[in-house]
């Protein structure tokens, strides 16, 4: 296996990631009655809203302090204060997230001070969570985790033990979050899932329209996280410094268990075993049945899957879970790649790929130009990741199974389910069927091209003396 880490390069060609503040918006969308404002120029908020709205097919309201040239010279404090006042008027939020952008960070805006001053001047008692997220400070994945940590840091309070479990989730789909909640319900476990955008970013059609949708982790539940019996943090590649789980462990002594995303048989087993171990609850018969069905599905499809040579890309934890899932189904990876800088992922994948029968490239801090080249070179025949990998399909003919973020050239990104036994089964079917679809489309022609001998033409070709190989086939 080869590892590649383009730590410093001059051009990123077709990016495999987005910027830090975009990722930081998402956890806020999973908090009860939260509103976000970005401190910087107007465009950042608009671009990110557009990107997020297109994926979820939901209205995404994010405010901006709309700084202009003058504010850049004299400081953006008046803008941010006015922005905060206006979103309170328009949205009546219960909590506000203030995210910075390249502009605010580079001119050195002190958002903590400004937010504090704003609250004092207006005599308000409203939680404002500040997150420093310069676009050059990290990828969207890092922004997501940092925002989670900052929210917990700001809102969690010393709390009496209450027997619940904190479940911290990475950037999954609303359907995935609903599946995790269903599993917790089936096991009769009391939990606080954070962030919970299962309803807010996939809301039902209902009237009247609400500017801030119902749902999201309740503020009181976040405040009470320190009283939990344990924290399960889904995510094994995140930095300790941006881990809400680590914060709760260090500050309040809540035991931390980090697990991979429960996609695939092994990782779902691991997740359920941990739940069992923490609560003493049995795994209910219905989930055992679901496991059996997944296994049945894996057996039914194993020969088709064995023909798959996968290219896996996206956010680090997803890449890890999807790689494991591909390994256990014989869809052996040719490339596993992320735009993030992530040494933990590289180490985990190195270990995972020791059983891979061919060389699997591990690319971190990479771009799609590189992923495409290595995929084509390694004869990959199935791509697993978000819509930005579409050129693999368009230019290299490698069919793309869409999963992750963003999905902007198909509908239903918010409903893509790939966790738990049931979700994994559906995910695997999608992959197997994509392989089959490709096979049905091509095998007649491919067999014809390989084996059919047009006797007449072949004789004449042989007569022209195309060598031993041709003569062998013609005889």
């Amino acid at each position, binding site marked *: 296996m080869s590892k590649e880490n383009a730590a410093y*390069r*001059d*051009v*990123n*060609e*077709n*990016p495999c*990631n987005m*910027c*830090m503040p975009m990722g930081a918006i998402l956890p806020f969308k999973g908090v009860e009655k939260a509103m976000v*404002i970005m401190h*910087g*120029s*107007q*465009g*950042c908020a*608009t*671009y*990110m*809203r*557009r*990107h997020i*709205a297109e994926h*979820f*097919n939901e*209205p*995404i*309201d994010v*405010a*901006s*302090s*709309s700084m202009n*040239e003058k*504010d*850049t010279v004299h400081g953006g404090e008046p*803008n941010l204060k*006015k*922005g*905060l006042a*206006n979103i309170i*008027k*328009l949205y009546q939020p219960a909590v506000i997230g203030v995210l910075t*952008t*390249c*502009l605010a960070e*580079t*001119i050195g805006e002190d958002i903590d001070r400004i937010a504090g001053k704003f609250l004092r001047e207006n005599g308000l008692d409203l939680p404002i969570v500040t997150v420093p997220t310069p*676009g*050059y*400070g990290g990828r969207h994945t890092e922004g997501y985790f940092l925002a989670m940590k900052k929210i917990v840091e700001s809102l969690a309070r010393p709390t009496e033990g209450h027997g619940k479990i904190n479940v911290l989730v990475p950037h999954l789909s609303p359907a995935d979050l609903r599946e995790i909640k269903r599993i917790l319900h089936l096991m009769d476990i009391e939990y606080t899932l954070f962030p919970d955008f299962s309803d807010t970013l996939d809301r039902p*059609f*209902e*009237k*009247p*329209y609400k*500017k801030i949708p119902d749902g999201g982790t309740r503020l009181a539940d976040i405040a009470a996280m320190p009283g939990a019996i344990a924290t399960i943090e889904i995510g094994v590649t995140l930095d300790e410094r941006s881990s809400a789980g680590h914060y709760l462990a260090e500050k309040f002594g809540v035991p931390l268990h980090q697990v991979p995303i429960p996609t695939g048989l092994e990782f779902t087993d691991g997740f359920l075993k941990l739940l069992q171990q923490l609560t003493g609850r049995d795994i209910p018969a219905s989930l055992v049945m679901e496991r059996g069905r997944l296994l049945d599905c894996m057996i039914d499809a194993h020969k088709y899957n064995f023909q798959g040579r996968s290219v896996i890309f996206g956010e680090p934890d997803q890449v890890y879970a999807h790689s494991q899932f591909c390994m256990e189904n014989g869809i052996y990876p040719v490339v596993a790649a992320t*735009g993030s800088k992530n040494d933990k992922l590289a180490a985990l994948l190195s270990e995972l790929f020791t059983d891979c029968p061919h060389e699997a490239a591990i690319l971190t801090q990479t771009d799609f*130009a590189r992923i495409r080249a290595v995929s084509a070179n390694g004869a990959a025949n199935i791509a697993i990741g978000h819509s*930005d990998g579409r050129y693999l399909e368009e230019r290299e003919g490698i069919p793309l199974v869409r999963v992750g973020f963003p999905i*902007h050239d198909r509908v239903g990104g918010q409903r893509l389910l790939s966790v738990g036994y049931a979700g994994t089964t559906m995910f695997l079917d999608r992959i197997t069927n994509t392989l089959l679809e490709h096979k049905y489309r091509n095998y007649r022609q491919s067999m014809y091209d390989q084996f059919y001998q047009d006797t007449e033409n072949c004789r004449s070709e042989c007569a022209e003396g195309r060598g031993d190989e041709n003569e062998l086939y013609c005889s």
Partner: protein
Amino acid sequence: MRDTERLEAAIEERKDSIQTKGKQKQQLKCDTNSVAGCVSQRACVYCGARVVLNPVTDAIHLVHGPIGCASYTWDIRGSLTSGSDLYRFSFSTDLQEMDVIFGGEKKLARAIDGLVEKYQPKLIFVYSTCIVGVIGDDLEAVCKAAARRHGIEVIPVQSSGFIGNKSAGYRAACDALLKLIKPAENEQISKNNTINYLGDFNLAGEVWIIKDYLQRMGLALNVAFTGDSNYETLKTATKASLNIVQCAGSMIYLANQMKEIYDIPYHNVSFLGLEDTSDSLRRIARTYNDLEIMRRTEELIKAETAAVAPLLARYREKLRGKKAAIYVGGGFKAISLIKQFREIGIDVVMIGTQTGRQEEYDTINDLVDDGTVILDDANPSELERFMVEKGAHLLVGGVKERPLAYKLGIAFIDHNHDRKHPLSGYVGAVNFAQEVYSTVCSPVWKYTGEGGGLDEQRKCCLS
């Protein structure tokens, strides 16, 4: 005045940017900075510049900045090409913390060198982003040196996000184009009888449709700014004898500059809807004062109109009496849409733009009926409120507005840059009517009316 009372109470600064036709006497406030915290739908300077320049097909579009700016603008627009497709790639210097501290000039120079080696382009646009404007990289100098080093055009686009709004980006793009089309020092410009077409980005082949019309009239398209243009064709721009300008918001500045510098007159045109398309073709024909051209133009208008009129009449039957809300980027599009809706029997009850100009709002005000809400730089709260109050059946807008309309149970028309079918010319007028019909008359709305609430849904399930 009832219409605006509640909003005045909400955000004082927004009140002069919202009017109800027939109720206010003062001019609508527009072309100002967005108000902080109001959730403007506008993008930034860089966005404006990128939209205008990106359709130049064989150019390298290199974003000097952090990754997000390149990521959010990568191949999200439907400009088509008849040649190179290099423009569909997204290149960024992907600035990191250290670059911000020590400056990004050297990295940019190396990036250009690497791209020249890999792709041998004749033209590179280097876009400035917020951060470049703040750390003070000398884009001009780096580009100039690189151009000299490689013997190609490397043109800086001054599009730092904070220097204004999207309109400032249009201007930055036009300045870059002016640099590109400038003839060499001692080059003689030999004029020909062709037309430049400004402000069409060849979405779903729209430039090709207009090119065909011009040919049938006996005229020739020289180059479009910037749909399906390339280095070679743009270099011939100064030879044309007439500029026609569609998207005036982005291109009127370029048209004025070309008139001043190269003595090329221009007409404003619009190919959205039958009325505007026919008017525009006639206006172009008249410029030439040539009876044959005018005859062929009338012939074309007659044939095309006759072909689509029965189709439009059928849609008008279905759509008569429906009410539309419009929220689009620029004024020209908004104006054409009012007329286009009229052609299919629909009234406009709310209309706004992100970056419309004063004279465009004056025209809008003249065109709409009393009681229509007109607003500049609106936010989701305002759009929601006026669409509901005015009982709009459909909204025309961009990607961000679409889910809002759907959540309100309102039909939606994608009049944005990532659409996949043309809305220009006669064929576009039919497509438009067809799209309006497909969204307004979808059976889905049977289930979302008054009975769309959860309680009703529950009752439905039980009955």
